[in-house]
């Protein structure tokens, strides 16, 4: 079974690719490693800020999944092993083996389903771990990973206190327990807008559980918890995976609502959990200089950021640049060797 490790960011420039790169360069046996991206990795200059971006360097033997137009874009020599029946804007996807080390441009499967299909195809290549590099603030495809690394930092918010509160909320939501439903449950697909609530008769809900298979936005969810609090007994709430909770639109409010719901006796959990392995932090951020209308490199205090974050989170906090490759690698290896829940 391939272990899927996702590296997702809370925003652009939070250090996803740096984290991915640190794992790749520390990896002892390239043949056991596959790497892909749910976005587009490898551009030299950031498309918006025009600041240089890190590029992925892969060693001979490792496997990559990328799009046709990226195959010759880097300096690495790639050998096509298999063409997948999957298309992205940069062409069909290919599973390739790195024949000569060098920089690789990655644009891989960009949805949860296509990532799943890609993993299935990778099975025959004796890969032990698939690293899935995130894109921007995108999370949805990460719903299928076993272990997740969340990259956050100054690029998301230059207020360290607020950044820590958000990370706490993420940690709380990702660590919601796994719930297995025995009793008949009320199945809810999507709660995107408040009007969606009318489809279901929540006010006189007699089910022991409500199971959400789709997307739940914070606004209808707030109304829902108000409605449910009128019920004689609070039904349990089960979300298909915790990633969907991270997309609700207001992480702090969502974590507070769920905490309150639990405090009132409600049971809240997920059907398919995933492990939060680490929160990596990046004090760097692009600062917009109005005078010449350009972005310039800026940094927050790295020590302060690390200590504040570490004191708030149970999850190990890693500053990849300052702590070196080993810290993150050890955490991932522990997970690969059995700590992952799936």
């Amino acid at each position, binding site marked *: 079974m391939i272990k899927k490790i996702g590296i997702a960011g809370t925003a652009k420039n939070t250090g996803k690719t740096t984290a991915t790169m640190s794992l790749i360069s520390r990896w002892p046996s390239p043949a056991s490693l596959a790497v892909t991206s749910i976005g587009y990795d490898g551009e030299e*200059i950031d498309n918006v800020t025009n600041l240089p971006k890190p590029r992925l360097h892969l060693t001979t033997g490792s496997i990559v999944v990328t799009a046709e137009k990226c195959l010759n874009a880097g300096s690495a020599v790639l050998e096509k092993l298999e063409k997948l029946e999957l298309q992205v804007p940069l062409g069909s996807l290919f599973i390739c083996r790195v024949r000569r080390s060098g920089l690789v441009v990655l644009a891989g499967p960009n949805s949860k389903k296509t990532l799943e299909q890609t993993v299935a195809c990778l099975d025959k290549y004796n890969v032990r771990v698939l690293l899935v590099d995130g894109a921007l603030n995108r999370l949805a495809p990460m719903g299928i990973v076993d272990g997740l690394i969340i990259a956050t930092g100054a690029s998301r918010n230059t207020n360290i206190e607020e950044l820590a509160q958000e990370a706490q909320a993420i940690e709380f939501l990702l660590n919601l327990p796994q719930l297995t439903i025995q009793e008949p449950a009320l199945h809810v697909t999507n709660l995107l807008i408040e009007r969606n609530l009318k489809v279901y008769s929540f006010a006189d809900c007699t089910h022991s559980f409500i199971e959400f298979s789709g997307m739940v936005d914070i606004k209808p969810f707030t109304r829902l918890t108000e409605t449910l609090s009128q019920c004689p007994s609070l039904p349990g709430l089960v979300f298909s995976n915790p990633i969907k909770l991270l997309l609700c639109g207001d992480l702090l409010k969502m974590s507070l609502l769920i905490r309150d719901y639990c405090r009132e006796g409600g049971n809240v959990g997920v059907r398919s959990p995933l492990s939060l392995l680490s929160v990596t932090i990046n004090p760097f951020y692009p600062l917009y200089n109005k005078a010449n209308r350009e972005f310039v490199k800026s940094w927050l205090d790295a020590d302060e950021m690390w200590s504040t974050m570490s004191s708030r989170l149970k999850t190990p906090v890693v500053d990849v640049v300052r702590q070196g490759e080993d810290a993150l690698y050890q955490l991932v290896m522990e997970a690969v060797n059995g700590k992952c829940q799936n």
Partner: protein
Amino acid sequence: MAHCLDSIIDALDVETFVVAKDENEAKEVIKKIMTEMGLKDIDVVYCQHLGPGARVRARGYIFRAGDKYGWLKGADGK
């Protein structure tokens, strides 16, 4: 050089065609050219990329509104 630029009422435009793979690359190149020409307050006014490269108008502001204009100095430069 600074003295010559003082005669420019506000900005110096460079009109050219840059061979580049895309608009971003063309903008980068023209900005670099303008910087190397010693212009500081630069902008790319217009850039259209098609096929071989981009038609570009780059601008270096010598004076913006509210600045102390070089051309308002006396003949002795004071």
